[in-house]
Each structure stands twice: as C-alpha cells, then as structure tokens.
C-alpha cells in the first residue's frame, strides 16, 4: 500500500498528471449532470452521435491545418446538437434515427478525410485510434487546454445550478411547461448547446467512442438507488467524480489507457448500484 502511495506521489510531481486529474474530474461531473436529463428524455445516444460529429470536424480541422481545432469543432458540434435536440417533435426523421444518421455519417466522413489527407506523422490508424479512444491525449494537455476546460466547466456548472428548476420542469413535462408559459424551446436549445460543449471537452478524456459512458452510467446508477430528481442529480455527479478519479489513478499506476479504464470503473460501480437497488427494493 505504501508503495502505491509513494508511486502516486512521484507521479503527482508531474504537472500533466495533475492537469489530467483536474480536467477529468470536471468533465465527469459536467457530463453526469446533463446525463440525468438526457437519459430521461430518451436521448442516451446523443453523446455518441455528437462525439462522432466532433470526430468528423476534428479530422477536417486537422487536414485544413487549423492552429486550434476547437475553432471548427465546437461550432459544428453545437450546430448538430441543436439540430438533434431542439427540433423537437416537428422533425420528419425522429430522435434515434436522426442521431444514428448524423453519427455514422460524420464518422465515415472523418475517417475518409483522415485517409485521403494523412497527417505529418503518416500513422493513420494511430491517429484514428487516438481520436476514437482518447488514448494518451489527456496526459498531453497544454496549460491553455486546462484553463479552457476549467472555465467552460464552471460555466456549465453555474448554468446548471441556476437553471436546475427549469431543466427539471422541461424534462419532466415539456407540454405542461410550455402550455403554462415556460419557454421550453429556449431551454431545450440551452441543454443542446451545453451538451455539445461537454462532449467536445470530453473527447480529450475518453475519446469519441466512449463518451456515452460518461453521460449514461452515472445517471443510470443513481436512478437504481435514489428516487427524487435532486438526489439522483447529486448522486450521479458524485458517482461520476469518484469513478473518474479512480479511473485516472488506476490508469496511471497500471499504465492502462485512460478512457477505457474510467469506463471500466463506471461499469463496475454501476453493477454495485444495481445490486444495492435490488436489495433496497426487497426490503
């Protein structure tokens, strides 16, 4: 045990490990908060869809030699989120089909672009793999990335707390909310923009294939055990934070890939909550 701690202590002397921990923690908390709403609105897969859009945009930004890929990736992802979430019931192609369509379409486009215009490293499969699974990019964050992530995360948290009651009203019953004078459309738009921001941030952490895990596991686990919206929200934020920290520490110690380790911890914790839920119901 003591060896583990001394090992961790040496790792923590490196700034990139500290950065990874801060960024991972913040992203995990933000995504879990929105996750509760998305799971309840039956939009669990939006994380997957949007992250593939971000993947496609990132590939194009890479080819066009943008100095900062965010300039292209963020607006494109936000646009896709608005198209998917805010269109609501009027759209001709419904939720799951629309997400699947945009998701695979941009995934294919991104991979195609990466193949036709290979980057300087010339390692196409390596590039693709690192974008899809996050690989080590969280351990190579620059100070700018960390600050951007910290600021955006705090904005997301602040907005979530200030609009918590409105998000609840719109999630529970959109018709009632808009019939009684709440501007449900605007809040749906807000949720769409926030989730797009979180996903672009989270791509550094777990890569675009595993983002859904950060969105759905905390919410689903909390719902096994807790029964009010407030307790589910708080529990999923804590759940996500603990899993992210554990995942990052394990991956540092055991030299496993960061993204999949975090998701692995999430899966294990979900199983524990699931069993707790069953025991609670029996009593």
């Amino acid at each position, binding site marked *: 045990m003591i060896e583990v701690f001394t090992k961790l202590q040496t790792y923590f002397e490196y700034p990139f490990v500290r950065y990874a921990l801060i960024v991972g923690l913040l992203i995990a908390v933000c995504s879990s908060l929105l996750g509760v709403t998305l799971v*309840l609105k039956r939009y669990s897969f939006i994380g997957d869809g949007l992250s593939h859009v971000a993947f496609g945009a990132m590939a194009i930004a890479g080819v066009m030699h943008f100095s900062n890929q965010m300039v292209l990736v963020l607006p494109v992802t936000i646009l896709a989120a608005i198209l998917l979430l805010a269109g609501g019931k009027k759209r001709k192609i419904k939720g799951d089909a629309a997400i699947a369509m945009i998701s695979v379409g941009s995934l294919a486009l991104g991979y195609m672009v990466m193949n036709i215009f290979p980057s300087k490293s010339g390692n196409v499969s390596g590039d693709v793999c690192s974008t899809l699974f996050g690989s080590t990019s969280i351990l190579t964050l620059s100070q700018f990335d960390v600050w951007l992530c910290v600021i955006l995360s705090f904005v997301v948290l602040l907005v979530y707390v200030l609009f918590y009651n409105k998000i609840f009203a719109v999630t529970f019953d959109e018709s*009632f*909310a808009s*019939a*009684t004078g709440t501007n449900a459309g605007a809040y749906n738009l807000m949720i769409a923009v926030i989730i797009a921001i979180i996903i672009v941030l989270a791509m550094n952490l777990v890569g675009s294939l595993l983002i859904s895990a950060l969105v759905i596991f905390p919410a689903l686990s909390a719902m096994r055990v807790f029964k009010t919206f407030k307790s589910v929200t708080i529990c999923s934020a804590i759940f996500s934070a603990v899993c992210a920290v554990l995942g990052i520490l394990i991956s540092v110690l055991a030299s496993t890939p960061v993204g999949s380790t975090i998701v692995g911890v999430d899966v294990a914790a979900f199983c524990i909550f699931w069993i707790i839920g069953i025991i609670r119901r029996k009593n």
Partner: protein
Amino acid sequence: MLQLKVTDLCVGYDSNVVAEHLNFQVESGDYLCIVGENGSGKSTLMRTILGLQHPISGSIVYYDGLSKNEIGYLPQQTVVQRDFPASVSEIVISGFQGKMGLLPFYSAQQKKGALDAMEKMGITHLQKRCYRELSGGQQQRVLLARALCATSKILLLDEPVSGLDPKVTAEMYALISELNRQGISIIMISHDISAAIKYASHILHIDNDVFYGTKESYLASEKGKAFMGIDGGEKND
C-alpha cells in the same frame, strides 16, 4: 366574466384539418366538457387553445387579463413520466415555473403554495414519495396539484380519468367539481358523455356539425337525444 372566446377556429396538423367551425366561449366559473369520437380533434383543439400548436384559421382570445402563465393544464401521462425519478413535492412545485421568468429558485411563498395545493388534493402525506411508485389515481392528484400551482382561474384537463378504476374515477370527478365550485373554470376533454352531462355546465360536441351550448340545450338537441336514446336514464342527478 368572459375568459376565453374562440371564433370560427379550424385546428389540425400542417394543413390537414382535424376539426373546423369551432365557436365557443368560457366564462369564469363555467365547466365546459369537450366530447366527441376518438380522432375528432378534441386533443388537437386543447393543444391549440394552450398554444402548443398554431391554429390553421380563426381566433382564440383570452379576456379577464388571463395570460399564458395563469392557465393550469392536466396533460395525459407520457412514457417518460412513468419511470421518472422525482418526488411528489418536486413535481407539484414545478407548476410555478411559468411564473418564474429568469429567477432561478422558488420563493418561500411558492413553497407554501405548493403545500396548499397538495393539501387541497389530499396528498400531503405523499410529498416525499417517488412519483413512479404511486397508483394511477394518486399520480393524477399530483398532476392536478401541479396544475393548481399554475392557475387559480382556468384549468384544462385532457382525459383526466383515463385508465382509472370506477371508484377512483368518481373521486377524481368529485375533486374537479369541488375546484369548479371554488371558482376555477374547467375545460375538460372526455369521451365519457354520461359523466360530461352529470358534471358539466356547457357541452362542446365535436362532430361533422359541431354543437356548443349549455347542458340543458344539449339534452334537448338532436345530438343529445340521440345519445340519450343509446345510453338513456343516466341524466338524472
């Protein structure tokens, strides 16, 4: 006092007309029942009155200083709500949301208002319970309490008793009548014409030719007589 006036309204989706030539009005204290076959456009009409969709033509005008955030609404349950983790008090107080504007948190007065609404609906003892674990009748009471938070003037109810057993149905109707006696206007959709005749003061029957009038004139009309012929004997109350 006149609260709502609907003139030559035509409702539907895109350009598909579902119901047309609708003319009726609601005065404060009225109990209007909207009846008609499935697919006759009752729910579409209600969604249009609530502003959830646009009318194809015609007009809906609110009087008596009634603005959108003073309307209460009891929608039909959605799939999402059936497994939604939320406590009764969280749902009831969300009825105030329309009055909040950009304010982030509920005031002490609104928290008290939510308690009063739960008291009225007899669900105070359930306030900490999880919504999805309640019975159908209890869930409807919760949604009705939420609607009371949104209004003290007019309540729109979309099939409030569907899926409830006869005893709970009777309790629900009694509760709605009690609210009406306290001065809240009721607009209710129902396919249960006998209940409509028992409780309502006015009837809007949507069909190829639309009937609107008081319960008494409905019973004297061809439509009312036709209905009485099939299902007679229940009009005495």
